[in-house]
């Protein structure tokens, strides 16, 4: 009497019901891979079921993966608001026709756009629709015994047969022990005078598979937590001045939608000193070698400040908020006296570096000047030099020969209009430049300690020296451990799903005209393995000898 199979008939589609052995099953979801076709007659429930099937099919998952890849591309080619806001502004000015269209379809915010979100949300749904039924099947089969042998083992590509004089029972026992010694699950069935030893290994593959796909979801959830509850901001801080962690001190601030500004950690710090060095000779001249900022940190108001060495790859962490040194530049110190001789402005002004030699652009606004407001716009050259045609440029990033080149304006700065203004842009609608006799704007070229007079008694501007400033990125990434654990889980799962190869092996022995006929066959349920080699090896170890009347394909 043959024991009944513990599995449903389709669970192992052996050569019994088809000529070819079943295709190896590699990743998730073979059952719905074939479910394409037309929707069934429109009964609502069936339509829903059909749609669900389509969505969770492997084919759809594949297409969604490709869509995800394609949808990611524009964000790497077009400047992104969240990555580099100033590049977005520059792009918009140089492509005035394209910008509004791009803006409307979210090309500047690709990774939070509706269409990008739609793709990955569908992918997540597809993933869940895949994992849940597979996990259920796996849980049910976790203790399953190896399946009975198909009737006709010789139809397997990995197959060997030979004869010996060993009694079938002894032969089967030997095969059982051999297979058990290889850490396989083994079951012996007696069936119609045959003895069949069924063995299976590689159950962990599916576990790895499921772990990987669950872990991908964990990563996405972790990223979402960081995105919702975290924030990212930046500030330019001139050396000698301080920063306290409140909204007004940030130059830009991007909070997650669930972030509450009241939760900003109440720390503050002063940038005492910033040192930078460059390669001064040989190849790579002008390459930065090190940046170091020395800061004094107070964890909360009234706390004793402590010193900290803030540098690239060495962030400051206070209360879960991290401060990173991401850039630096020059802030020329100027004193402006107005037409009446009063000091209307004095102090460092942050200029933004434009190139690797730190040619820096900036504006100085003097709203307190009388009788008219004054504005200046121009460049700071840390190592000023002149081109052959007389144009000033910076020859080296360090401040070896600082030169300030400005154009002065008088009139209305527009700062009282109530509209927000960038400190790096001079609104020239209400301003007139000081000009030379030929009508061209009068350039003011200043070295440290020098003062220039504005034409017509408009006032003076003195270039007193310079300070360095540091660009700090300040951020909080709550829940960042979640995606990390997710990725680690995904890697472990991947290793399981890629390197564990489920394999079923059958050894059948039967008495035939006084001799024992052996048959060995194996079937891999994943690609990449070599069941034929396994069968050959097994046959040799089970005692098939060369001169025997063995046959194998």
């Amino acid at each position, binding site marked *: 009497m043959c024991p009944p199979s513990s599995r449903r008939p389709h669970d192992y589609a052996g050569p019994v019901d088809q000529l070819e052995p079943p295709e190896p099953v590699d990743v998730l979801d073979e059952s719905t*891979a074939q479910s394409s076709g037309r929707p069934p007659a429109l009964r609502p429930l069936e339509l829903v079921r059909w749609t669900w099937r389509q969505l969770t099919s492997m*084919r759809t998952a594949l297409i969604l993966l490709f869509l*995800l890849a394609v949808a*990611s591309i524009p964000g790497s080619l077009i400047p992104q608001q969240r990555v580099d806001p100033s590049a977005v502004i520059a792009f918009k000015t140089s492509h005035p026709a394209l910008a509004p269209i791009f803006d409307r379809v979210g090309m500047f915010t690709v990774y939070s756009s509706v269409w990008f979100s739609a793709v990955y949300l569908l992918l997540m749904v597809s993933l869940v629709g895949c994992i849940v039924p597979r996990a259920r099947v796996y849980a049910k089969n976790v203790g399953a015994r190896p399946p009975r042998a198909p009737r006709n083992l010789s139809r397997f590509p990995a197959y060997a047969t030979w004869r010996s004089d060993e009694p079938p029972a002894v032969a089967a026992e030997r095969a059982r022990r051999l297979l058990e010694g290889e850490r396989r699950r083994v079951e012996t069935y007696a069936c119609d005078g045959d003895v069949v030893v069924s063995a299976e290994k590689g159950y962990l593959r599916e576990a790895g598979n499921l772990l990987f796909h669950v872990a991908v979801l964990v990563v996405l959830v972790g990223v979402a937590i960081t995105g919702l509850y975290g924030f990212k901001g930046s500030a330019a801080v001139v050396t000698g001045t301080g920063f306290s962690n409140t909204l007004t001190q940030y130059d830009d601030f991007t909070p997650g939608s669930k972030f509450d500004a009241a939760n900003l950690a109440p720390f503050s710090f002063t940038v005492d000193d910033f040192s930078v060095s460059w390669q001064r000779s040989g190849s790579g001249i002008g390459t930065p070698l090190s940046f170091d900022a020395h800061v004094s940190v107070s964890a909360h108001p009234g706390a004793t400040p402590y010193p900290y060495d803030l540098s690239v790859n060495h962030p400051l962490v206070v209360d879960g908020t991290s401060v990173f040194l991401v850039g630096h530049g020059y802030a020329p110190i100027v004193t402006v006296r107005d037409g009446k001789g009063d000091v209307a402005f004095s102090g460092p002004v942050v200029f933004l570096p434009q190139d690797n030699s730190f040619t820096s652009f900036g504006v100085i606004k003097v709203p307190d000047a009388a009788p008219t407001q004054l504005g200046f716009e121009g460049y700071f050259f840390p190592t000023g030099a002149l081109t052959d045609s007389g144009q000033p440029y910076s020859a080296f990033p360090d401040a070896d020969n600082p030169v300030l080149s400005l154009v002065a304006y008088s009139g209305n700065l527009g700062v009282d209009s109530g509209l927000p203004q960038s400190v790096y842009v001079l609104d020239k609608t209400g301003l007139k430049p000081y000009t030379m006799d030929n009508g061209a704007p009068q350039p003011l070229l200043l070295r440290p300690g020098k003062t220039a007079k504005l034409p017509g008694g408009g006032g003076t501007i003195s270039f007193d020296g310079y300070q360095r400033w540091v660009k700090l990125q300040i951020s909080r990434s709550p829940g960042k451990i979640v995606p990390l654990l997710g*990725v680690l889980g995904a*890697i472990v799962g991947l290793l399981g799903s890629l390197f564990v190869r489920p394999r079923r092996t059958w050894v059948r022995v039967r008495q035939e005209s006084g001799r024992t006929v052996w048959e060995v066959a194996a079937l891999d349920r994943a690609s990449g393995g070599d069941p034929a080699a396994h069968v050959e090896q097994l046959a040799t170890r089970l005692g098939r000898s060369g001169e025997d009347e063995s046959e*194998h*394909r």
Partner: protein
Amino acid sequence: MTETLAQISNNALYSATVVYALAMVAHIVEWAMARDLTAEAVPRVHALVGAGAPDSPASGQPVPPAPVPSVDDEERSDRFGRIGLSLTVLGVLLLAVGVVARGLAAHRVPWGSMYEFSITGSLTVSVAYLFLVRRYSVRWLGLLVTGFLVTVLGLAVIVLYRPVAPLVPALHSYWLLIHVSAAATAGGAYTVGALASVLYLLRNRLEEKALADPSAPRRGFLWRTPTAEAIDRVAYRIHAFAFPLWTFAVMAGAIWAQYAWGRYWGWDPKEVWAFITWVVYAAYLHARATAGWKGSAAAYVALLGFATFIFNFVGINLYGSGLHSYSGM
């Protein structure tokens, strides 16, 4: 000292390029000598194919009479194949000397510019290939591998060369070691995997043609490689090795980014393309298990993945902006 080491590095890399070119020529001769050889004598089929595996369509079918290939041709083809492999081994040694000397000259890992990434990448490709030759007897990849290496090394020494220079501060971190070594190793494996996929596609097309027209002659080098199925299996194993490693490399990059820039993922162009590469190779692994995608379609997906990887290295380094601007170009 630095000067001397840098000079040694340059000389070794020039020599390696020349030796690889000679290896490539040897492999070309190997292919040429095999053009009249039939599929029947299949001397180099490794156990991967297996005694019981469904053999190439060639087996069991009558092979039309060939224009009498001489035994000489067979021997000669094999000899040139062996010469090609020996030269490749020599090339790898020279390349290793070049890369190590470059690192010693710069007092750091040689991963600071596109030139250095190219020579290091060439080394990982070569090592991956030689490992696979030992493990799976993949000498049939010789022509494609040496051709690829000659191209990359040639471009490196001629176009991308930069003198030894210090690292920018952003790279002063041991994460450079972890992140770049994982990415370079995965990249080397992706490259060999892609070349194996190319050979699979060639062989597969041949087999399909032969199925359609069983009387057509089966001659030439491609008939002497393992079956398309066996090549596909090797390609899959290479990709299966590379993909988890690539996942790790991206993760290590994310940890470093959190540490250096305050966010573990910021959609920097380099990150975007690393992600795209990951997604496409994930699609490859899924495609292999999907009806209608198995076989050549999946192989094309693998090649697409490789294209995204190369674009990330070349396109984004040269034309992209962003935080990963270390090409030195």
